């Protein structure tokens, strides 16, 4: 742990809404910021908000946001005391954490050793088993030959998952349904693992087919104490990408909540964990299994902040400065919070990315509503990066009230210029299984695998469209010349 020192300037090695989140936290703490950005990201909210900006490379991530040397160099030349990696990109990269430290700056996050231990799924699983934590039956041996892997598949039983041993998210992940397709899918996972992470090592795991995604937020303070900030549920996922998250989980009773929290806390404490981290579990039939630990801030951290009354980003910075946190000894959750991720995509065409210039946006403020936004009108949504452009988070007294508030908030949210997944989010929020809190990680593929049907306009609405269009200056109804200019020249009648 570095000696306590107050940061004068923090570099942010990230983009979008999380960069804005971190810059705001720094501003409130009286810390200057320098944004390390790619060449195309000068038309963004984070760029305008930061005190300084340093271009670390061209648009493609590998040339900029994933370039360790360029980011360290940028932070150094700006005179930063510390680097916040946000999430994604270099946030879970041990070499980056080491490079920042070796350059004499502080990495705002866990230690390089923490990242190493949990970054590799195999060593993470071994660590969990060492402390008696529940893991999913699987194979994670050295012998990566196809005959051995096939034998292990038969032992574990189908369906099962074949994953890259390194790396996070859904990359290189295959679901193997039976022995006939096993060999082909294992080979394909090995190839993907090799190209994405430089290591073809895979591991096998039983596939829990009606499990819920439950995760526990932990935080190791500078004094070595690990705080357990309870759980979140993120079962609404599409292709292993979370869409809606909430805190606390509606699926845990008090006993399970305590048990899962204790395991997560022990896990972090035994590893000497520092900073924000999330331990992910699958819960099926009242039993939970360790999945992985993310050694960083999560996208969905705001839901925990709202129910626990904490600021995780400021806590990260305080901890990195060697300062104590003014957190209570025991946490108690208050009310319920839900987050919806806003993706720039076309919900009527199966979620294909929608790019373009944001023409206008309106965020309906109100009590218990929070908006994390990375763009402003005039900014461009490009296809270089993740299509998540904003997050809407609500808090209310109970889960059902939070759902109602989210629906109303999304109804009043306006984004012109790119299409968004808001209609899809509305459908999910109204789905019985979601309302009852019974959704599993297969919820999305079961109920929403088909694109939404585009809305159809009633005759009255078509009149309205004409009226709006007319008001905007282009004649669609009666022009001065008295001629009907409407291309939608039609009459209607009841059948």
């Amino acid at each position, binding site marked *: 742990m570095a000696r306590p020192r107050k940061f004068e300037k923090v570099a942010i090695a990230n983009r979008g809404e999380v960069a804005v989140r971190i810059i705001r936290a720094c501003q409130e703490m009286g810390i200057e910021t320098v944004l390390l950005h790619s060449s195309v990201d000068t038309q963004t909210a984070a760029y305008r908000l930061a005190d300084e900006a340093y271009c670390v490379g061209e648009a493609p991530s590998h040339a900029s946001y994933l370039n360790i040397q360029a980011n360290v160099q940028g932070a150094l030349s700006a005179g930063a005391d510390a680097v916040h990696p946000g999430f994604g990109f270099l946030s879970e990269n041990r070499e980056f954490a080491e490079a920042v430290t070796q350059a004499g700056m502080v990495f705002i996050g866990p230690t390089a050793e923490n990242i190493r231990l949990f970054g590799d799924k195999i060593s993470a699983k071994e660590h969990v088993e060492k402390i008696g934590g529940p893991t999913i039956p699987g194979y994670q041996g050295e012998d990566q030959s196809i005959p051995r892997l096939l034998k292990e598949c038969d032992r574990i039983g189908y369906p099962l998952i074949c994953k890259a041993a390194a790396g996070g998210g859904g990359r290189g992940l295959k679901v193997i349904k039976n022995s006939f397709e096993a060999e082909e899918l294992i080979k394909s996972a090995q190839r993907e693992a090799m190209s994405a992470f430089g290591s073809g090592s895979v591991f096998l795991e039983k596939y829990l087919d009606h499990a819920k995604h439950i995760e526990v937020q932990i935080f190791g303070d500078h004094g070595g104490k690990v705080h357990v900030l309870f759980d979140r549920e993120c079962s609404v996922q599409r292709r292993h990408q979370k869409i809606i998250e909430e805190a606390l989980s509606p699926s845990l009773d008090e006993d399970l909540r305590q048990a899962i929290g204790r395991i997560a806390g022990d896990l972090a404490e035994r590893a000497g964990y520092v900073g924000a981290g999330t331990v992910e579990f699958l819960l099926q039939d009242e039993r939970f299994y360790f999945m992985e630990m993310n050694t960083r801030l999560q996208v969905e951290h705001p839901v925990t902040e709202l129910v626990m009354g904490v600021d995780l980003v400021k806590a990260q910075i305080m901890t990195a400065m060697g300062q104590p946190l003014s957190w209570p000894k025991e946490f108690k959750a208050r009310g319920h919070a839900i987050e919806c991720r806003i993706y720039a995509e076309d919900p009527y065409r199966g979620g294909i990315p929608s790019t373009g210039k944001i023409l206008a946006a309106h965020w309906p403020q109100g009590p218990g509503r929070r908006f994390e936004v990375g763009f402003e009108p005039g900014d461009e949504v490009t296809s270089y990066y993740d299509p998540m452009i904003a997050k809407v988070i609500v808090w209310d007294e109970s889960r059902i009230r939070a759902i109602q508030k989210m629906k109303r908030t999304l109804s009043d949210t*306006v984004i012109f210029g790119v299409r968004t997944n808001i*209609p899809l989010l509305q459908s999910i929020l109204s789905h019985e299984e979601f309302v009852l809190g019974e959704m599993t990680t297969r919820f999305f593929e079961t109920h929403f695998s088909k694109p939404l049907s585009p809305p159809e306009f009633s005759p009255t609405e*078509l009149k309205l*469209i004409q009226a709006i*269009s007319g*008001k905007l200056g*282009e004649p669609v109804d009666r022009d001065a010349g008295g001629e009907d*200019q409407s291309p939608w020249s*039609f009459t*209607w009648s009841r059948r």
Partner: protein
Amino acid sequence: MNWVEIPYHGKIWRIPALKSQGRLWFHWQGETHVVEVGNGSRRGGADQGRSHRGVIQAPMPGKVTKVHVTVGERVAKGKALVVMEAMKMEYTLEADLDGTIAEVGVTPGQQVSLGQVIVRLDEETGKA
């Protein structure tokens, strides 16, 4: 946010709306919509309005039920060209000028999307 004020059901509604590059974006009753409105060249030319005259587009997604005209046929303004169906309603698309049918882009039973070109008309010139 750009908006327009529209009277509807006895109240003036402020509706977020803007036009850009041939598209009309508007937010109405909790949903954002975008409809194609042509290239948006302003009044004063022959190509007025949201679309070119003589280009009949589908005003909504739906199904074509009847096609009343064939290519080459001369039609008068107001002539019923195509009947389509959506939301249990029938819509009759009419000629917006006197002219000749240059193209019929649909057949009965066909599903069409919003803004899809249904019929093209050539304007009658030199008419006495």
